[in-house]
């Protein structure tokens, strides 16, 4: 139950903030940016989802109607897989513009993802592409700072703090009332935006079901905690600083470090600690290893395979085998390639994840990094969920190749190059069915960020309580 004094402070602070022209203008600006970015993100996500659905259907249709051909030709013909846009991806597009959202699945190759908007964007487009997540992560904290830096420093500077404390109201009640009053004014801005976001999910969720409302609820909680960190931090600084100017300068410094410096440091530090090869280097390594194998992974020996098959089937000549030795060899080559891909892509993904861990560590100094990781995770657009889909797509590719090579092996004979499969085989190949990770999977993955954000929240609230309790009147 809210104490009597706190209620009055909340009401006054709420009224005072709402009547403040600076708040009205700032909130109109931030609110407009938030709604525009939410709307733009939603429209883009819907469009991408429609285009992906159409492309997926077209790709499937092409696959099924490719006509009669050798299964290995079909394997080279390949099929596209599209990473589904989850419901919340319109809030935070995460790494998708950089990693791409579609991949061509074909024989002998684990291809890179395509459709990377960031690759095609000009510098101006990159700056202009403001997402709802960026507004929430950068602009709302700035608004909180502008509303709160004078909460106690301003009262002290104006002389009203003496009069307030002379009424008998406690410093704790005053501080808590002010924080809640400012939070109430902010809620007028953010609750409608959250409502619009929830409606966008319910009315026209652009993505497949992956507990979108639960994810949205947790995402809301994450941002509320993040805003509470800034509110508590601003209250602490305002209670401590001798003047409003000092409080503002300190808090703007924190905002710059949090939003601009720490992310840059995290990127550079993670690259320095865990370097990744350039795309060209990576491609050359894979190509080289595919050509000659590695110490641990030997290229398949066609003669040895033929010998082994002839022994297995009790024949003396390859032509006498009841199966097509070429199909068996192609499958063995696939499996060799798979081991090379697992070795290289596995190491690359592991490096990305180690880099992510560095980001989460730097979040100890900047809560933005923890929130960003959680936001992308809940929106389904982080590196881990990209890897989750890439793994599913690669598993599907391998199964597809196994089916094609299996059909060639079982239904034709060695030396028979005229064998052709038809629609029955293509149609019997199931389409890629992808289940996005559960909310529990995401939260388990993002546990360090949750812990860091929670720690920030507790520490800033304790700091605010301590500073407000000791706030001097003059």
């Amino acid at each position, binding site marked *: 139950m809210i104490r009597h004094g706190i209620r*009055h402070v909340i009401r*006054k602070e709420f009224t*005072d903030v709402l009547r403040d022209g600076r708040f009205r203008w700032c909130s109109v600006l931030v609110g407009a940016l938030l709604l525009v970015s939410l709307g733009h993100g939603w429209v883009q996500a819907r469009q991408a989802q429609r285009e992906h659905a159409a492309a997926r259907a077209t790709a499937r249709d092409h696959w099924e109607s490719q006509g009669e051909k050798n299964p290995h030709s079909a394997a080279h013909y390949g099929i596209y897989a599209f990473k589904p846009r989850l419901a919340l991806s319109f809030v935070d597009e995460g790494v998708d513009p950089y990693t791409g959202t579609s991949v061509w699945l074909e024989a002998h190759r684990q291809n890179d993802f395509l459709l990377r908007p960031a690759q095609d964007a000009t510098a101006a487009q990159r700056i202009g592409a403001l997402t709802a997540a960026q507004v929430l992560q950068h602009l709302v904290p700035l608004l909180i700072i502008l509303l709160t830096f004078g909460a106690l420093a301003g009262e002290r500077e104006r002389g*009203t703090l003496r009069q307030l404390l*002379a009424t*008998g109201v406690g410093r704790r009640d005053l501080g808590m009332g002010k924080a809640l009053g400012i939070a109430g004014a902010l809620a007028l801005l953010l609750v409608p935006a959250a409502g619009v976001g929830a409606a966008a999910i319910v009315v026209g969720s652009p993505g497949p079901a992956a507990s979108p409302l639960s994810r949205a609820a947790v995402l809301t909680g994450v941002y509320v905690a993040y805003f509470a960190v800034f509110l508590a931090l601003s209250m602490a600084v305002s209670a401590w600083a001798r003047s409003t100017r000092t409080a503002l300068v300190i808090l703007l410094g924190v905002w710059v470090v949090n939003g601009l410096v720490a992310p840059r440091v995290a990127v550079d530090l993670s690259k320095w600690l865990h370097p990744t090869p350039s795309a060209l280097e990576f491609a050359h390594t894979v190509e080289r290893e595919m050509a000659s194998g590695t110490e641990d992974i030997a290229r398949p020996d066609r003669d040895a395979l033929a010998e082994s098959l002839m022994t297995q089937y009790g024949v003396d000549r390859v032509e006498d085998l009841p199966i097509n030795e070429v199909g068996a060899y192609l499958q063995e080559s696939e499996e060799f390639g798979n081991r090379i891909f697992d070795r290289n892509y596995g190491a690359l993904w592991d490096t990305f994840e180690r880099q992510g861990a560095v980001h989460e560590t730097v979040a100890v100094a900047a809560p933005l990094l923890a929130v960003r990781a959680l936001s992308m995770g809940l929106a389904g657009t982080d590196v881990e969920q990209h890897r989750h889909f890439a793994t599913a797509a690669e598993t599907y590719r391998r199964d597809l190749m196994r089916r094609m090579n299996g059909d060639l092996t079982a239904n034709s004979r060695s030396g028979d190059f005229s064998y052709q499969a038809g629609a029955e085989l293509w149609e019997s190949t199931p389409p890629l069915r992808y289940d996005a990770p559960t909310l529990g999977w995401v939260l388990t993955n993002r546990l360090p960020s949750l812990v860091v954000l929670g720690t920030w929240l507790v520490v800033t609230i304790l700091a605010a309580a301590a500073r407000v309790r000791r706030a001097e009147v003059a």
Partner: protein
Amino acid sequence: MQTAESGAGQPPLLEARGLSKRYGATQALDSLDLAIEAGEVYCLLGPNGAGKTTTINLFLGFVSPSGGQALVSGMDVSTHDRETKHRLAYIPEQVMLYRNLSGLENLEYFASLGGKGSMGRERLTDILVQAGLERDAADRRVSEYSKGMRQKVGIAIAMAKEAEALLLDEPTSGLDPKASNEFSALIERLRNRGVAVLMATHDLFRAKETGTRVGIMRYGSLVTELGTDEIGHADLERVYLEHMHD
């Protein structure tokens, strides 16, 4: 408001016992002994740095004493912060209010924090009028108020709180003579209702007109104390200047 003077055996409403405050090497207040009963207006006179504001700050609990006690109705301010503040009202040299709120809303806010939240707007408007504010000014935003009008809201805040004791820190500084006279009349009315008033001021004339007793301070010490009915304006000025030139 208290309507009768403190009875026999009742502690003074405001009392300083050997009250001292030291800031580093500076002795801001040195063993002040003072007792102000209900219906008394005690004026502390003295130049800047004499210890007047420090005395008020000590009664408000804004600073901790280095020695002695500040008592409100017999309760030590250091150990009964909330209880003593509920018995006090404070009007600073410049009453500062919230510019985005009206005079009435400011009064409503301060009164509710002082535990008088149940007063209706009608009653609070009446208090503003009693304090000398025009009725139609009550709903105007304070950003349009003059200093005199703000001081009147300050008085209204003190009246609405129905405090037993009033602490005034240079309350008429910067007011024109008419506003100062109105202010003195209000203090007189509060005194008649049994409120104990401690007023720090530079204004010898106002101290003689409004006060019942005058204490002259210098370098943190109370150097002399006079009843205002014992002396005239000229005598007070002479005594004050004598002490300032010692």
